[in-house]
């Protein structure tokens, strides 16, 4: 098909340099891989700031960038809640309260922690669903990348995904997690340097912050909302009818802020693996805290372009930018970043922006693949398929699992291209499995009485409750099926977002309650077995020699103060 962007020699050169550089880093790091711990956990030797940036970057896939920009255009400043209400408090909680048990238990993965704390069946359930989910999400992201490269550059769908998957495969095969982490740090800086000029040029075009507010007021009024509905984060959350997201404060704070965000940031091995690779417990605790600073500034890099694009489309600015439409005539919000890149960036900078976009796809994919190979090898292959083999064998298996993970992701990408509905259904199923997880970890780490049966049946109950709630409710304007209502329609939500938040709240609560009831009905875990796994059974760690300004508690207080200030400024 006809390409939307024409690259010049300088753009290809920058892209080519980046590809070569990434492969070169894998080659250099290969000599440092001697054991399976080197391969899966970087030999636990990564400094805190590197682990922190990788922690952030592994989550910063292109779907996140493109999705957040799209949300910025669709919902405006309220999208910042995903960062300032969602991510930051959860990252602080992970660092202060949960990391001591993940890192301190010497578990190699999150599922392994579940085995140590609860039992084998809870670990197996979590490991299997995690493996399937990483492959699936990596495949969906690859599918999105293939489409985007096809649209922007006219590349064949297969060429785009095989090229990027091939490069990721090579550098992980060579350097394992270290290679993935180092590349993630580079990708982090590329994304910042690649997208920052976009925000500057767009903001200048739209007339600065005041011009943007005026443009967004026109957008809001055109959609029948109050003037500040797109430019203020809290002021329009009094009721679901006042804001384009269709949510209100309680649903947002509990559903997104508590259940979904804590569930993701505190239990997803993909990001936690980066912190577990740190060179000490203190560094592992500081890694997520260090990540909070760039994370809280990311809305300005990823959400703001969406807000700028929608204001420009509504007639603001002088450079006649407008978002392209979908076939049904509505604006295609997923193209915010690519079309802004094509509109503002001259040759040269365009190469850098495109490299940043491809880098973000790669960092997301590498995050999934490294988490997959670790959980597959340590939590499925070693305990169930081939126990008792030597370390060299598991290192070999890790490399085989890397190839397998990439191939499965590619297969999932083609599946997504062929049957969109199957992927939607699978994603939904995993959302149900994930929704209650945080209740299990919370009780596991802070309540000695919670036992294996409680955890397992709690998780099942949470998943079933999530599915039931989804099957009995429907968002406005949605068709019965994958969007909900497939059992009966008992309730209508104003938006899909509101339905998601409430599905999460109900799943979490069911898991929490059932875990407590089943645990109390059964035998308590043996007291000696919980040391290092449960807070009250573990001696307090003394941060000791560290000066006060390097202590996690101080960094955490800073992060919370900064995020409260941001919420107030953009209220």
């Amino acid at each position, binding site marked *: 098909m006809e390409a939307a962007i024409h690259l010049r020699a*300088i753009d290809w*050169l*920058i892209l080519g*340099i*980046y590809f070569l*550089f990434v492969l070169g*880093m894998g080659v*250099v*790091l290969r000599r*440092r891989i001697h054991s399976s711990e080197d391969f899966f956990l*970087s030999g636990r*030797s*990564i400094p805190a700031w*590197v682990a922190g940036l990788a922690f952030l970057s592994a989550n910063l896939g292109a779907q996140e960038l493109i999705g957040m920009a799209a949300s910025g255009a669709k919902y405006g400043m309220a999208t910042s809640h995903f960062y300032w209400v969602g991510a930051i408090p959860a990252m602080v909680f992970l660092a202060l309260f949960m990391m001591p048990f993940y890192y301190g238990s010497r578990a190699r993965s999150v599922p392994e922690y579940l085995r140590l704390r609860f039992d084998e069946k809870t670990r197996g359930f979590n490991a299997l669903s995690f493996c399937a989910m990483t492959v699936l999400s990596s495949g969906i992201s690859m599918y999105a990348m293939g489409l985007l490269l096809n649209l922007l550059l006219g590349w064949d769908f297969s060429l785009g995904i095989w090229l990027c998957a091939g490069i990721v495969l090579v550098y992980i095969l060579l350097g394992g997690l*270290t290679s993935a982490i*180092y590349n993630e*740090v*580079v990708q982090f*800086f590329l994304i910042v*340097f690649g997208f920052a*000029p976009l925000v*500057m*040029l767009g903001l*200048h*075009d739209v007339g600065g912050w005041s011009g943007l507010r005026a443009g967004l007021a026109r957008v809001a009024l055109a959609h029948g909302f109050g003037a500040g509905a797109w430019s203020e984060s809290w002021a329009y959350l009094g009721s679901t009818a006042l804001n384009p997201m269709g949510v209100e404060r309680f649903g947002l704070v509990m559903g997104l802020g508590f259940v979904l965000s804590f569930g993701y940031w505190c239990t997803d091995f993909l990001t936690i693996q980066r912190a577990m690779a740190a060179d000490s417990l203190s560094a592992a605790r500081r890694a997520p805290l260090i990540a909070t600073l760039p994370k809280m500034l990311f809305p300005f890099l990823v959400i703001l372009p969406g807000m700028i694009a929608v204001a420009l489309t509504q007639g603001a*600015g*002088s*450079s*006649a930018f407008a978002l392209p439409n979908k076939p049904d005539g509505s604006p295609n919000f997923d193209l915010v970043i690519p079309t802004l890149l094509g*509109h*503002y*960036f*001259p*040759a*040269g*900078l365009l190469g*850098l922006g495109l490299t940043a976009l491809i880098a973000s796809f790669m960092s997301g994919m590498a995050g999934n693949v490294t988490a997959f190979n670790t959980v597959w090898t340590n939590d499925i292959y070693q305990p169930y398929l081939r126990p008792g083999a030597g370390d060299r064998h598991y290192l070999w298996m890790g490399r085989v699992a890397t190839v397998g993970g990439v191939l499965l992701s590619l297969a999932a990408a083609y599946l997504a291209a062929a049957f969109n509905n199957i992927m939607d259904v699978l994603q939904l199923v995993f959302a149900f499995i994930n929704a209650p997880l945080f209740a299990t970890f919370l009780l596991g780490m802070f309540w000695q009485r919670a036992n294996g049966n409680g955890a397992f049946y709690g998780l099942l109950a949470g998943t079933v409750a999530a599915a039931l709630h989804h099957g009995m409710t429907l968002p406005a304007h949605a068709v019965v099926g994958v969007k909900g209502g497939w059992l009966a329609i008992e309730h209508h939500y104003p938006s899909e977002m509101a339905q998601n938040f409430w599905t999460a709240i109900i799943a979490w609560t069911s898991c929490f309650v059932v875990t407590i009831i089943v645990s109390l009905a059964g035998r308590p875990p043996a007291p000696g077995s919980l040391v290092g796994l449960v807070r009250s059974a573990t001696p307090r760690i003394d941060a000791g020699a560290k000066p006060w300004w390097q202590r996690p508690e101080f960094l955490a207080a800073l992060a919370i103060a900064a995020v409260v200030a941001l919420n107030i400024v953009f209220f």
Partner: protein
Amino acid sequence: MNLDIRLPLGVLFSVIGVLLLGYGIASRHTPPGAPWWSNIDAWWGGALAAFGTLMLILARRRH
């Protein structure tokens, strides 16, 4: 001991920065609606090169 990440960061951004700077000076592109920063390739390339150099200096000082 591990490779100091600042070294590869420094190399990559210095190379890309110098390339952009040179290309910007040679070609003088102006993006739509652009003001004093009209030659964005050049000055953004300069900024990248400065960041790359800083990383290289920091990596050298550690050793």
